[in-house]
Each structure stands twice: as structure tokens, then as C-alpha cells.
């Protein structure tokens, strides 16, 4: 009889431990991927001065874009921003970078420049890695949210005070397709 009582106590305890550890693991996975995104964004910011230096001589008419991106970068690496401000700034940088890359089409000499081509490949790679990291972040958030909301893990989650996290979403204005015509004419 005592064996039955022992099992009756041990089994729920083991289950709770498994659920608890599972929740911690998922929370940590979200944090880990967030850290990866951060590191990749920093890599991108580090490339910006190089980009500006390479294109400055060629792109005489794009002064405003280049200034904009240099200022945005300075703000981003200053480290004095809240999370939301960081995300907004990151969106601005993405958009401006996109505009610069489209404007490059007007400068065939620049397009053929070896330094620029190498830089373009590196930037493409980082952009793709950032996109991969964001997808991984959303997957990690989904797994975490599932555990926080579904039964029976939600019981333990609410005891731990875990709340659902939000997915990474592209800002509404970025979702508008880039108007290449407008950019090329400017």
C-alpha cells in the first residue's frame, strides 16, 4: 500500500519537474536566438561605415540617404535606447539600406567596383542570416507560447509567472512594396 502511495506522489512530482524544465528550456531558447539576432544586427551596423565610404565617391546625388544611415547607425551603437526604440531604428536602417542598394543601379561604375561587389555579397549574407535568425526567433516564441497556453503545461507556467511573448513582425510601412521607380528617379 505504501508503494502505491509512493508512486502516487512520485509520478506527479516527476511530471511537474519535467514540465518546469521544459518551460525553462523554451524560455532560454527564445533568449538565445534573440541574442543571435542582436549579434547579427551589430555585424550589420559595423559594415555601414565601410559601405558609406565605398559609395560616397560615386553616389554624388545620394548624400541625404548616406547621412541618414550614418546617423541611424551612430544612434544604434550608442546603446542608450530601449528595446522598442532599437527595433524602430533597425527598421529605419533596413529601409534606408534597401533604398541605397536600389539607387546603386544608377551607377554602373560603382556596381562593377570590386570592393563594392565584395561588400554587397557580405551584406546579402548578413541580411539572409538576420532573416534566418528572425524565423528561428518566431519558432522559439511559438514553442514557448504553446507551452505557456496549452494544458497541462499552462498550470506550471502560470505558477512561474510566465507570459506569452510577441512574435517579431515587420513594421507596416516596410510591408509596402518598395517603389523602385520612385527611388530610381530620385
Amino acid at each position, binding site marked *: 500500500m505504501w508503494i502505491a502511495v509512493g508512486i502516487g506522489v512520485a509520478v506527479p512530482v516527476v511530471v511537474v519537474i519535467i514540465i518546469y524544465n521544459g518551460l525553462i528550456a523554451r524560455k532560454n531558447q527564445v533568449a538565445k*536566438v534573440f541574442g543571435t539576432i542582436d549579434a547579427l544586427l551589430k555585424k550589420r551596423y559595423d559594415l555601414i561605415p565601410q559601405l558609406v565610404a565605398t559609395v560616397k565617391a560615386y553616389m554624388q546625388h545620394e548624400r541625404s540617404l548616406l547621412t541618414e544611415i550614418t546617423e541611424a547607425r551612430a544612434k544604434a551603437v550608442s546603446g542608450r535606447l530601449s528595446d522598442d526604440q532599437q527595433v524602430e531604428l533597425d527598421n529605419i536602417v533596413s529601409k534606408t539600406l534597401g533604398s541605397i542598394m536600389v539607387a546603386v543601379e544608377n551607377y554602373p561604375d560603382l556596381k562593377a567596383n570590386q570592393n563594392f561587389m565584395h561588400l554587397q555579397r557580405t551584406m546579402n*549574407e548578413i541580411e539572409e542570416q538576420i532573416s534566418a535568425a528572425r524565423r528561428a526567433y518566431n*519558432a522559439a516564441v511559438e514553442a514557448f507560447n504553446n507551452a505557456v497556453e496549452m494544458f497541462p503545461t499552462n498550470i506550471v507556467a502560470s505558477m512561474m509567472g510566465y507570459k506569452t511573448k510577441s512574435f517579431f513582425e515587420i513594421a507596416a510601412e516596410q510591408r509596402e512594396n518598395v517603389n523602385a521607380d520612385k527611388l530610381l528617379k530620385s
Partner: protein
Amino acid sequence: MKTLEDLKNFYETALMPDLKVIEQQRRSVVHKVAWVVIATVSIAAVAFFVAAQSLHEAGPVVIFPIIVGLLIGAGVCYLLTRGYVADFKALVIERIVHFIDENLSYEPKRCIDKSTFMLSKIFTTKPNRYKGDDFVSGKVGATEIQFSELNAVYESGSGRNRHRYTVFRGIFFVGDFNKHFTGQTIVLPDTAEKLFGRLGQKLQSLNIFRGNLIKLEDPEFESHFAVYGSDQVEARYILSTSLMARITDFKEKTGKKIYLSFIGSMVFVAVPYTRDLFEPRLFKTLLDFEPVRQYFDDLQLAVGIIDDLNLNTRIWSKE
């Protein structure tokens, strides 16, 4: 990319003279084989009758030479056809390979190394009977490739308990991937998810020998494949949304359960086949277009992986 029209032209102008030469050879081989078979069977039949007469005394003594005779007959047939197959491959298959792309080279007797096969980590069982043929290699555009037919089998036990497990039989392809990466990502055909849905996914994630299960966003891709990888972000860097769609399309093109893996900045693709590819027919004429078209299709499927997976797009840091 060569079209069917191109192939027809090639077949009629360039290939036909060689086909005629080989066809002569085929006919002569068929005649010789027919004679050997008739001779061997007649001798065996005669010997059998003789043995039947003197049943009591010499039974086993006469059976033995009959069996030896049959074996010799089979051996002679094999030797006759071997020369024919080698000539066929050198003339016909090699020409078709060069027709598809001049930068490709063909070695009929060679196959992908066993070490490369195991390096892909697609198949975890190490085969102890490993052979293959029809090795093609070269650089198409910016991509180095190698592929061959393989037949990898694992045999265990002996005598009556012998078990034969086919690890892989079909075309095994190795190509230079267009992105740098450091970990491993393995794409396997997905049976559990199809049958069991979410529970199937749970079972897959428990497969600890394979590394982390990577759940991707493309629902069609996910329904066909289960992905395991060493790093969640890197797996998604490799398997971009466009590559996932391309892999799904390629799988549908082959109509088979394909396996892929991404290791050491290379991509490995395994396409299983139940038949032997690139072997010449013995008892039917070679002058038809149909078998040539089949050889071309099979070769084109493998070489076409470069375009299907967009491996020549080199816009990232790897050139």
C-alpha cells in the same frame, strides 16, 4: 539546359552511327550467348540421360560435371556481355554525358567513395557491401558536382539467418553549396508527421540520435520532410523559403522519397531507384530513341539538381 528536341537532333546526327556499331556488337553477343546456352543445356541434358541410365552407380559423379558445365556456360555468357556493356558505356553513355554538359566527365566503373557517403550522415547504418558505377563529375557554372549510382547493403548473420538490408540504392549526388556554413542540417523524408500529425512531430523530436528537430514554416515542405540540425538559425539560413519550395518541387519531379543533407558547405542528395540505370539492353534493339531518352532523363535529373536548387546563384560570400 538541353531540351528533348536537342536530344533528338543529337540522337539522329551524332549518336546514331555509334549506336549502329554497338548494335552489331549486341547482335553478335546475343548469337554467341544463344549458342552457349543451347550447347550447355544440350550437353547437360545428354549427360543427364546418361546418368539416368546408370542411375545406381554413378549418379552424383555425373551430376557434378553437369553443374560445372552449367557454371562454365554462365561464366562464358557473363564474359561475353561484359565487353559489350563496357563498350556501350564508353560510346553511348559518355557521349550523352558530354552532350548534357561538356565540362562533365564520366567514369563507368567508379562510384562515390564510401567515406563521402557516410560523411553525408543521411544513412546511419554503415553498409558492409558497397558498390556502384557510372560516376559523373565536373564543374557546371560555379558548382562542382559528383554523382554516381550506388548500391549499399548491410548483411548480417550467416547461413540461414542471413539478413540483407538495403541501406541505399539509387543515385547519390554531392555538390558544392552556394553558402558558407559550419554545422550540419539533414532533411529526411517524413513518415511520422504524415501519419500522426502533431504526435508524429513529438516522436520525431525525441529522436535524439539525429540532433535537434527543426520546425520550419513552409507547410508543404514540412509535410514531406523532417529536418534535423545542429543549429536552429543556421538551418534556416540554409533552408531559405525559396530553397524549401525548390526542394519540394524537385521531390515532386522525381516522384520519390528523397534525402538531403548539408554538411561542410556541401549539399548531398540521395534519390532512390529500384532499377539499374545506364545499363544496355541485351535482347532488344538499341536503335530506338526510347532507351536513349531514358538515359538522358536519368542523367539530366541528376545534373539538373544544380538548377533545381539554384546552386549557381552566388550572391553571398561564397563564390
